[in-house]
């Protein structure tokens, strides 16, 4: 039972990551469309922010791991 709930938790974390990174990507596309010369800087910033958002989602994944296999 616990494994099912942990799996649901991990899935929710993936939804969070997907929504967050999707938003970042969308805004980055708009910004590049508005000003193509800045595309290099925009791309770098997009990757950094995506990594930060994904870090938060990965915290949740690690908690799901720990919940599924309690390593006291």
């Amino acid at each position, binding site marked *: 039972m616990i*494994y099912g709930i942990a799996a649901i938790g991990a899935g929710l974390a993936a939804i969070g990551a997907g929504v967050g990174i999707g938003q970042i990507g969308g805004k980055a596309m708009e910004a590049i469309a508005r000003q193509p010369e800045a595309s290099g800087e925009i791309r770098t910033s997009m*990757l950094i922010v995506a*990594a930060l958002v994904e870090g938060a989602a990965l915290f949740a994944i690690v908690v799901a791991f*720990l919940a*599924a296999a309690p390593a006291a």
Partner: protein
Amino acid sequence: MISTTMICAQDHSGHKHSGQGHSGHDHSGHSHGTKAPGKHVTPKKVGSHAGHNHGADGHDHGSHSKDAHAHGDHDPNKNFNVNEMIMHHIMDSHEFHIAGDMAIPLPVILYVPGEGLKTFLSSKFEHGHKEVDGFAMHHGKVVSTKGYESADLFNLIGGSDNKLYYDFSITKNVFTMMLGALIMFLLFMMVARGYKNRAGKSPKGLQAVMEPLFVFIQDEVAKPNIPHKWQKYLPFLMTLFFFILICNLLGLIPFFPGSGNVSGNIAFTFVLAFIASMVVNFSANKHFWAHTLWMPGVPVAIKPILGVIEFIGVIIIKPASLMIRLFANISGGHIIILSLISLIFIFGQMGESIPGVAVGSIVSTVFVLFMNCIELFVAFLQAFIFTILTALYIGQAVEEPEHH
């Protein structure tokens, strides 16, 4: 029959026996309960310390495929336990597993004060069947039959009731890290010699590969984030980037010199994040600490609360996020690739169904190819992100106050 691939990473970071004294070296000083064959255990409790069946599968046969696997017993009725296979390949081990029973053994180096230094190949343990010199192998980990405890940071500082022995074995992760360091050394020596011999001429060969990477890290990561003092921190940032990159790439290679899951080991990433946070904290100037603990521009009532939050952020949360980001990305990628490869075995039901193997191979190959491309990208990206975040934190710490 398709075992639900319950992904349970054995995260030893919270466990008091985590091997932080030896970076990248997995220690598990706890003893696992002995398996009782034919016992129904559902659900799986991988890593549970309750003394239950360790890694027991939830199948009806109750056969323990890892044991049977290790014994060389090709029982056609044994089930393929995906979870155990994946965990075995993600975690550190004393041998490079090739296929079935074939494995490349690695040296086990133990120092027991009073009994001297013991060195032997891990093949002498014969997968846990034999005792060697007071030590046995239990689930791939060396344990002492005389009740000694393996020395790690917690034992050495806190003291222990049992006698401590020191484990200096060359395990898979240690070997991969040494190989990574050697590769880095050779690469950069060759590039440096190339620049010396061809001074003034355009770069050729290996230089042409390394120069864009090096200049990218210097111009896009170090200089913008650490405006004036970037030269002081450049060697550290370069080492960080290239070492993480090479360890990531070595983990992606599926056969012998590669295949070690170094950056997916939380002890390794913990040490890297710890070193990065030490560099940031010790190079921070008074201006940074003043701003952090007593932030200007907010109401006085909030300053202490914000100070505590910021302090915890700088000391604990930021390095922890560096650690977990790299660990989860890399080990998650490895788990996915291993799961997709196990599809072949699941479809073919361990060779019982040839059409199953054929279909499984085709499906699995396409997915694994796709996932490996993503993992290659992730290897570069995660090394870059670790480096740029460290550069960002260093830049914030050494920032001089603006003079209005």
